[in-house]
């Protein structure tokens, strides 16, 4: 560290003598700690502090998103296992509050086994896209997916709407008003599922299907109002950042020297902060990082295959069940469709609380944070598409420091 600072100081002096201005990236943060952050790294690191998160963004497609009654109703639905085909699985079965609203398993376990890992929910309301591949464009629409997924809740929308009318009628009316006409519905029905379920759905009138879809969407909107309240927690890193780059004093000892060295790598040589940036430590977008496929699972193209799904989804922001006014839904209207960039690209996950939730990656490919760091350091070629990674050339001490920092998040 010392030789590098000395070299930078010498370079600055010589540059000054020659009448040139040093690249800001080579200047040591003037008011910074004795930690060797470059100006760029310090600037990026300072933006990780949770205080800059602000309020969760609005969702114009959900008219009850900030309604406290909807959040209470949604919390009840989130924990109600009766909404699954077996009566044993609720949203909370996989999104467990004590471990960051995920399950700690490589692949989600509903009434069957999913093909991907359960995503954590703290801070989920800041996302623009949902699921690992972003095949949903709102939190409410995302909440509908598992309900009909045959390996998660395994239910269907007609059954769920009937259940809601029988069990939660008063709660529903208090938030959404009167039910639409739901008379004459069969026990089960949905455009997906087994043959009988699909046949029932096709036998319904357009008005019946629209009524069912309206109430089904409202289930998602109530659950989203609850999930919007799930926010990331303050950590030792935040105290350190506020002491180091902000006005707060006396908390720099919140991180060890090794963790501070890890933060410097995170924001500098390791380039982690290129995508894991800002207070949630994610850019919210999709990247191919060469994570290997899992043997035995079906081929997974990630974002590439999600584009058609989200565009065709009747529950998207532009669809008939969205409350968004004309002219909104920018994410969908300006959707990036370039296949070169999307093959096997998966969403950058938030790193807050990451040490609490192994295994890592979209199908739990890596068991430890050290395995993750070694993958990024080596930057192997992608099995499909092109990895954005380049080898980092981190030595053993640097790998250890970076892992120590990740453990502190």
């Amino acid at each position, binding site marked *: 560290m010392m030789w590098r600072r000395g070299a930078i100081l010498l370079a600055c002096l010589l540059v000054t003598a020659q009448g*040139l201005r040093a690249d800001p990236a080579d200047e040591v943060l003037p008011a910074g700690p004795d930690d060797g952050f470059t100006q760029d790294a310090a600037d990026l690191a300072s933006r990780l502090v949770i205080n800059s998160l602000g309020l969760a963004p609005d969702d114009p497609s959900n008219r009850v998103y900030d309604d406290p009654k909807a959040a209470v109703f949604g919390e009840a639905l989130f924990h109600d296992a009766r909404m699954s085909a077996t009566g044993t699985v609720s949203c909370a079965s996989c999104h467990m509050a004590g471990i960051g609203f995920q399950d700690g398993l490589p692949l989600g376990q509903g009434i069957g086994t999913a093909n991907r890992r359960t995503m954590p929910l703290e801070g989920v309301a800041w996302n623009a896209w949902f699921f690992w591949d972003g095949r949903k464009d709102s939190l409410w629409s995302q909440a509908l997916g598992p309900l009909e997924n045959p390996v998660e809740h395994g239910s269907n929308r007609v059954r769920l709407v009937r259940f809601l009318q029988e069990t939660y009628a008063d709660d529903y009316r208090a938030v959404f008003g009167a039910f639409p006409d739901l008379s004459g519905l069969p026990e089960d029905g949905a455009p997906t599922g087994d043959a009988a379920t699909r046949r029932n759905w096709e036998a319904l009138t357009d008005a019946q299907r629209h009524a069912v879809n309206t109430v089904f969407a409202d289930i998602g909107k109530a659950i989203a109002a609850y999930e919007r309240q799930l926010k990331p927690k303050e950590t030792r890193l935040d105290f350190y950042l506020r002491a180091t780059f902000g006005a707060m004093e006396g908390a720099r000892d919140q991180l060890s020297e090794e963790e501070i060295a890890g933060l410097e790598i995170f924001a500098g040589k390791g380039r982690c902060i*290129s*995508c894991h940036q800002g207070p949630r430590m994610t850019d919210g977008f999709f990247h191919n990082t060469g994570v290997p496929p899992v043997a035995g699972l079906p081929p997974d193209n990630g974002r590439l295959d999600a584009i058609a799904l989200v565009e065709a989804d009747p529950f998207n922001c532009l669809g008939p069940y969205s409350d968004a006014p004309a002219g909104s839904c*920018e994410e969908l209207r300006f959707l990036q469709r370039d296949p070169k960039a999307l093959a096997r690209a998966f969403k950058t996950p938030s790193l807050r609380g990451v040490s609490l939730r192994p295994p890592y990656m979209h199908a739990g490919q890596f068991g430890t944070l050290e395995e993750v760091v070694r993958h990024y350091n080596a930057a192997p070629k992608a099995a499909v598409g092109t990895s954005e990674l*380049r080898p980092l050339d981190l030595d053993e001490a640097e790998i250890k420091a970076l892992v120590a920092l990740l453990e502190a998040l």
Partner: protein
Amino acid sequence: MAKRVGVALVSGVAVLLAGWALWVRSGDAGPDLALSKTSDAGLYQVAIAPASQPFHREVFHDWNVTLRTKAGQPVEGARLTLGGGMPGHGHGLPTQPQQKGDGVGGVYEIDGFKFSMAGHWVIDIVIDAPAGADHVAFDLQL
């Protein structure tokens, strides 16, 4: 003799310093961050700017592209195709910006830019207009 050696030494050091300074200058040059450029084939003068200030990253923000001929006349009715990305990260734009309108007065509104992270971005503009097809790229440090 000693004087000549001294002069030679000083000259040598000066040459080395001058060379080093040139090396530093070229290393520090970085991308050209000008927001007004001539297109690659020289057909158009192109300028870009956020449609409103202050500019914000990580949210949708409209931009304006101003298109003029070499002689400075506004170019209307052009078709602009927007692209770009982060060359240092190997990824493209997270959204697909789109031209709105026909560029009255040579000013084209572009909707749908959302720069998802800090860093060096490139905006590519392919211009299709009566005077001919051309291309221009802008570097942004956001």
